[in-house]
């Protein structure tokens, strides 16, 4: 019986821990830096910001947004990496403490990724329309990161006819001086004989072939 007070005290803590850390599905593929919890949040956020259908058929997940964000977080400096991950944590768990519409008994007091679609939309709308600038900034930052990910998808760009075109790059004096990043000068494949006439300013043909990284297939 003496353990009952402890049990009562422990129960809310256990509940909160389960709400925050438990029940995330295993990621479909290994991530570079993000945890399964972060990927779970990004899956939910990507498909709330970019649901299937509409003007661009692909959803955020189908466009590969979570995997893109994983690569992005890996590429930024450590301090920025921490800030980005704090951003994800904040949006994912804010609804545990400040319930989405529906409240405690209507399913609103769950982490973002556990809310239903209406709850997720309501939670994001709360951030977006807030009168507090820092709250709006959170939404703007999250949307910016995920939007850049959405537009990193070659199928999305092709759907809008915004994919980059193939361009024949002239060889100029600088190309005889600099190797590719990380390589040694001996790797420079150009000589003075390789120099080509500079661009003559002929406008690009919008119906021309696409940049190799964006032509067909599904992406990089």
């Amino acid at each position, binding site marked *: 019986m003496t353990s009952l007070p402890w049990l009562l005290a422990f129960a809310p803590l256990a509940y909160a821990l389960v709400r925050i850390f438990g029940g995330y599905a295993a990621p479909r593929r290994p991530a570079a830096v993000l945890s399964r919890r972060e990927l779970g949040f990004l899956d939910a956020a990507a498909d709330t910001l970019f*649901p299937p259908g509409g003007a661009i058929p692909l959803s955020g997940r189908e466009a590969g947004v979570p995997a893109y964000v994983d690569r992005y977080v890996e590429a930024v400096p450590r301090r920025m990496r921490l800030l980005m991950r704090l951003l994800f944590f904040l949006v994912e768990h804010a609804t545990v403490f400040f319930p989405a519409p529906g409240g405690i008994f209507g399913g609103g007091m769950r982490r973002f990724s556990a809310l239903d679609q209406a709850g997720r939309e309501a939670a994001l709308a709360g951030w977006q329309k807030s009168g507090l600038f820092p709250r709006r900034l959170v939404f703007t930052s999250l949307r910016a990161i995920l939007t850049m990910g959405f537009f990193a998808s070659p199928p999305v760009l092709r759907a809008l006819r*915004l994919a980059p075109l193939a361009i024949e*790059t002239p060889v100029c004096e600088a190309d005889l001086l600099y190797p590719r990043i990380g390589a040694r000068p001996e790797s420079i494949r150009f000589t003075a004989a390789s120099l080509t006439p*500079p661009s003559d*300013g002929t406008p690009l043909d919008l119906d021309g072939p696409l940049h190799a990284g964006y032509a067909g297939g599904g992406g990089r």
Partner: protein
Amino acid sequence: MSVASAGQTGDVRVFAQYDRDFSEEADVAVVGSGPGGAVVAKELAEAGRRVVLLEEGPPFTPDDFEWEGTRSMTRTLREGGLRATRGYVMPTMQAICLGGGSLVNSAICPRSPDFTLERWCTQFQLERTTRADLDPHYESVEKFLGIAPTPDNVQGKRNLLFKRGCDALGYSSEPIPRNVRGCRGSGECFTGCRSRAKQSMDISYVPAAIRAGARVLTSVQVQEIRSEGRRATAIVGRVTAPFTGKLSHRFEVRAKVIVLAAGCMATPVLLQRSGGLANASHQVGENLQFHPGVAIQGIFPERTDPQFGATQGYQSLQFLREGFKLETLWAPPGVLAVRTPGFGLELKRHLGDLPYSATWDAIASCNHSTGTVRAVRGTLDPALAWRLDPRDVTILQRALWVLAEIFFAAGARTILPGVHGMSEEMHSLVEAEPLRSKPLRPTDVVCGGNHVFSTARMHGDPRQGVVDEDGKCHDLDNLWIADTSVFPQSPSVNPMLTCMALAHRTAGVIASRV
């Protein structure tokens, strides 16, 4: 340290070549290869001086360019492109690559207007920075880089629509003068010009400097300037790996003259980290100014194919005296779409309109809004504090209204103003009226903070400025600064050409003395 020279005359060194500590000697060491440093290096090398040009970033070849916005930003910009001010949170981008900002800017090269140079002279006790004084330097740079107005055949619809709107309203507009030869309208200025048309410093001034005998050391981070009395004696630092920033071998460069051209953020940080060098005036790192930029996206009834056309091809200088300049704008779609309102299917609807859109921006001379740059222990990344003054918000609001006018005069069916507390979509000038009449707070507008200046400002009075009119530090006999940190205030227009003109003048003075 185990010492060896890193290079030979007329040489460029890259990260893969450093295998030990090294030291160098030169007549002139130039820190930073952006528009200021590259001009100084080329002019002094051609004047016969032994020049070493140091750059923290690597050289980028076309094979290293990434078209996708964030991949490009994480590789070419400091702090992965996520640097921002504190106080008023505003993103600001500084490049880390050979050629500095010129590799990833849109090549805009107007001269500063007469009234700005007159104000500089009057308010900052300058005598030789008038139109007549600077024009020969402007002309020299313009000639070398082939600066010319953007031709009509690569303007694309989104640029020419801007002209149409300005014409309809009687506002002046003109093709933007740019340091470009043979632009094909790919709209890729921000991620590296695959046409090799943009005359960024890495393919123009730096090769010319090398041809004249300059040694170029890339992937080297200058960490301190050593001095004795009134003389700077050497710069020291470490080799730094591209992208990761991992530090390795140490180096030292001893020179008769040191020219700091590390940019408006890094130059004051270097001086602060060097024991508060050149700071008897207490102005190092003060007076931080930006050209905050605001933008509106307009949707037209017909396709604009915005991916085609000079990145920024048209401008209006009509409102310079009111404190703002108008420009057309394109960027990688993912970066541009960041401003698009809403989420869910509404967001997708807006994104689906991108091929029918044009984005035009205003940059403002916010002379009331200033801040500071401070060194942070353990890193060369600065702490930036800055506030947007309500008086300058008035300028930005006026600019937003004028942009709305131009959009509807050009035939836009909808505009997306991106201002908090207002409709996300406006379909007529009547609906846009709140842009003119509703009082705005600084946090209601989302600004981008590019074009940075004044953190080591020029002033005729040594008590009020860091450098004199020639760019020489008041406190030292052989330390010079040649970047936008020396601007007394906003140059009213895009700063690159004025930075290069001042650097050209600085190089001439150094050549006459060393």
